[in-house]
């Protein structure tokens, strides 16, 4: 067993190498951030299949599209801010619309990246990418999931956007017991009083919140909604039906991201109280990653508080109705 490094970027780099060993048609494009995204690991192993495009994300999307038309499976990597915003129209028109088999795996998601500040803190990418037809949007939460997900991405057909954080993240899952399917949420913890739906770096914090709640006798379910699109609407509706209230937790703007997506499902199919933990429609700032997360309310304590609020609203509704 190789050493376990608790970081999703490193897991991505390693998974790419694994994928490369058995899939000669996988190639990697990088816009001069390979040391950040960890595609350097692929570069070391398969230099002939690694195509730097320089600091030119728009061109990277087009080149990836062209490569895909020749039967290759290009993985294009850069930071989330650039993949989802600087080059989004290229992604939309050259890749998503013609359903080309390009895998955009972007790292340094959310405000947890810390010191680099708001210019590099992507808090809009999920909202943007999930609004584009034909695109699969995935957010792995731990290295085990990332290692499992990347080969699935390589074998899938069509455009995919994968969002990966920068900071180290604890292991959540057991490799043998984690079953992944696009469009199916992972039940990270069973519970019946409230459901916390989380993604990425907020899954471990949601599990910690569930521990806090348990001490108060509250049983919180935690759903890892790694597949933002296709979204597991059945799991959301079932959670609403069984627990009567929902909390979402994401390192992303609450507008249009996971919170937005869950709100759309609930309002259409099973309206129950929803509290969205996430970036409250504001740019964040520089600082140590953990400090920034705390300053903007992305903590286990805030998720637990949100759960209490959601439950109180549910109980209030019950009284009224």
């Amino acid at each position, binding site marked *: 067993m190789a050493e376990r490094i608790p970081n999703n970027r490193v897991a991505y780099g390693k998974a790419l190498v694994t994928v490369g060993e058995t899939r000669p048609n996988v190639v990697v494009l990088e816009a001069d951030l390979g040391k950040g995204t960890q595609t350097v690991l692929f570069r070391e192993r398969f230099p002939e299949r690694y*195509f730097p495009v320089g600091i030119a994300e728009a061109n990277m999307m*087009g080149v990836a599209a062209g490569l895909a038309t020749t039967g290759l499976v290009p993985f294009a990597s850069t930071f989330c801010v650039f993949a989802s915003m600087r080059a989004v129209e290229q992604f939309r028109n050259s890749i998503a619309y013609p359903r080309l088999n390009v895998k955009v795996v972007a790292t340094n998601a959310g405000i947890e990246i810390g010191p680099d500040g708001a210019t590099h803190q992507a808090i809009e990418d999920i909202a943007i990418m999930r609004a584009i037809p034909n695109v699969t949007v995935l957010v792995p939460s731990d290295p085990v999931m990332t290692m499992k997900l990347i080969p699935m991405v390589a074998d899938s057909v069509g455009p995919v956007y994968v969002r990966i954080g920068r900071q180290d993240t604890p292991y959540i899952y057991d490799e043998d017991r984690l079953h992944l399917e696009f469009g199916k949420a992972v039940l990270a913890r069973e519970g019946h009083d409230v459901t916390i739906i989380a993604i990425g770096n907020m899954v471990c914090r949601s599990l910690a919140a569930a521990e806090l709640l348990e001490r108060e006798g509250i049983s919180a379910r935690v759903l890892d909604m790694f597949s933002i699109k296709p979204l597991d609407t059945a799991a959301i509706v079932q959670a609403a039906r069984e627990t009567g209230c929902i909390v979402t937790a994401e390192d992303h703007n609450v507008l249009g991201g996971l919170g937005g997506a869950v709100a759309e499902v609930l309002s259409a199919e099973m309206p129950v109280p929803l509290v969205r933990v996430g970036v409250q429609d504001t740019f964040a700032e520089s600082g140590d990653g953990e400090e920034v997360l705390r300053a903007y309310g992305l903590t286990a304590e805030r998720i637990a508080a949100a759960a209490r609020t959601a439950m109180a609203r549910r109980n209030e509704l019950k009284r009224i109705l």
Partner: protein
Amino acid sequence: MNHHIQQLETIANELRCLALRAIYLAGSGHPGGSLSAAEIVTALYFSVLNVDPSRPDWPERDRVVLSKGHGCPILYAALAKRGYFPIEELWTLRKLGSRLQGHPDMRKTPGIDATTGSLGQGISVAVGMALGGKFQSKSYRVYAIMGCGEQQEGQVWEAAMSAAHYCLDNLVGIVDYNTLQIDGCNAEIMEIAPLTDKWRAFGWHVIQVDGHDIAALLDAFAGAKNTHGKPTAIIARTIKGKGVSFMEDQVKWHSSVVTKEHFEQAMAELGCDRIFDTELEATHG
């Protein structure tokens, strides 16, 4: 003048007729930039390209990326005349349910190699196709047709840099240099000259030609084929609206509506009536 060139000139004229009729029936579209590219498209599809209309997805085929996607009526006309789809289908251009979208769609139209229309993107896609060909030791060549206004897109130069970096001598970029864009002439909107110097500085072999001189275009494509280690840019000087007197060199014909009067005059100038009779007879057997 040799017979082959004469035949190609006749074809270019036919393609103008077909494209204009399609635009007229659509009620919208881009006549100016379709007409200016007639000889470029003709030279490619009726002389240069190694393609097989019965197998539009043939992996070894040469690729064409119409980076100036709005000029697609002339490309659709060439594809129809080459037999990728029936000539009559041209009359469905831009209509609901048609395979002929307002801008090229590789998933809908047989023979279209890349989805384009957003300027600056096609040349990047062409770079990827050429790179993929090199990587897989394929011998096909890739041709990207760009507009002159399109040269103002920064992505064009990102793509240009990358094509030279990867020594893509299987890639040819053609600039349909008609000097006009929607809002005016290049020089007053945003100067793109000196274009040959720019492409040369980006590491490309550059050939300047009269874009309406088919013999010169064929020479340029041959010159590109004989260029090794770097991509070739063909700067083709053209006239927007070429072939229809009142459209020539007129900014407004970038995308003006073609009325019945315009259409009839254009058809008369191009001698189109005869062409449609033969084309339709041929398609109906």
